[in-house]
């Protein structure tokens, strides 16, 4: 994928596209990268890894108290049990939202994010507005996501400063008692697992 454009008119490339192509070409010609490995990496992070993984973890935690207990005690092992592990998820901690307490995750220094369960981070997570403000004014940032929490809810912001990665377990929405695990997972948004959102209510899109 991608290399069929190798002979495109280079004058039409932006400066950054030219730089990526130059780097890729030089590294490939020197034998430092396997082009097939590069294609596989691109495909993995575009189609294989994403927040639906994390949503399955959350839904399982909602329906299975023993799994939830294990998740809160040893998230790395519990998440691996569902098949998600590895790069940027080597040391996982799950933090659960409960009535009166809300968790939000950030990496103020770069873009640390639990790839195996959430995929690659959205642009806003890596950008200066979120990284600078959420540690100082979490309610103001939540308002920009359309989220208002009760005034007496405690807010904990987790700054991912080392190699531990955090997954927020949102509160299970009301009125979901009869739902299957799969239907529950569909209510779990990416933002709800970062803490900048809440799980969807039934019927909400």
């Amino acid at each position, binding site marked *: 994928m*991608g290399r069929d454009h190798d002979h495109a008119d280079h004058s039409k490339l932006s400066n*950054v596209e030219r*730089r*990526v*192509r*130059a*780097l*890729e*070409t*030089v*590294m490939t*010609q*020197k034998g*430092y*990268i*396997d082009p*097939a*490995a*590069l294609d596989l*990496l*691109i495909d993995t*992070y*575009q189609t294989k890894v*994403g*927040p639906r993984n994390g949503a399955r973890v959350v839904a399982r935690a909602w329906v299975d108290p023993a799994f939830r207990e294990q998740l809160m005690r040893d998230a790395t092992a519990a998440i691996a049990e569902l098949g998600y592990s*590895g*790069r940027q998820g080597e*040391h996982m901690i799950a933090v659960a939202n409960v009535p009166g307490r809300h968790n939000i995750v950030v990496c*103020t*220094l*770069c*873009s640390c994010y639990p790839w195996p369960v959430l995929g*690659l981070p*959205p*642009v806003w997570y*890596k*950008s*200066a*507005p*979120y*990284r*600078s*403000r959420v*540690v*100082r004014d*979490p*309610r103001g940032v939540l308002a*920009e*996501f359309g989220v208002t929490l009760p005034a007496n809810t*405690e*807010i*904990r*912001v*987790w*700054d991912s*400063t*080392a*190699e*531990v990665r955090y997954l927020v377990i949102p509160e299970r929405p009301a009125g979901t008692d009869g739902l299957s695990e799969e239907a529950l997972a569909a209510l779990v948004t990416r*933002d709800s697992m970062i803490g900048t959102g809440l799980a969807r209510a039934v019927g909400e899109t």
Partner: protein
Amino acid sequence: MPYVSHADIGGRSGFGPVVPEPEGAVFHATWEPRAHALTIALGATGSWNLDMARSARETLPDYLNLSYYEIWLGGLEKLVIAKNLATPDELTAGCVLHAPAPVGRVLKADQVGAVLAKGAATERAPAGPARFRPGQRVRTRATPAEHHTRLPGYLRGKTGVIERVLGAHVFADSHAQGLGEDPQWLYTVVCDAAELWGSEATPGHSVSFDAWQPYLEAA
């Protein structure tokens, strides 16, 4: 020359509102997934480590004017030049001009799945007992580091409480400087927002972060 990280922006103001985006949007140009994949594939050569990569990115002078994958690309170009994987004239020309030096490893397609699944755990056997225990009050180092560090500026010289002992982990500060893994005890430390932001702090707000033992002293 003093070490300046342009990435240490926690608590700063003036960057404008957050712009949320839909869940499906991960890449916004076709070069972005390539820059991301190049970062992983070239990292796998072992020519540098993750902390060196972070250091290369955060010291880009125009860091705050770049998109995130532009930061990754700029960091990668710096690293390949610094580690002699390419010369500036080769990156300008877009072709090989000099004989390649050997690298530690080349990530092959049939290894990608296993390498990603394995990851790179940073927990190591501790060299000694942990100095702090949960519930203990600690104060963070007040002075800026003259090298890559993972203690953000807004958390310097602050008092908090040890919440969790996370084991001994590769120490980013040493690792980034090429001084080896130097494993140190890592702790989750919690600070009340009032300790960080004074009277403007929101009641009931706290910030936690992960701090290696050398960042901390008993308070």
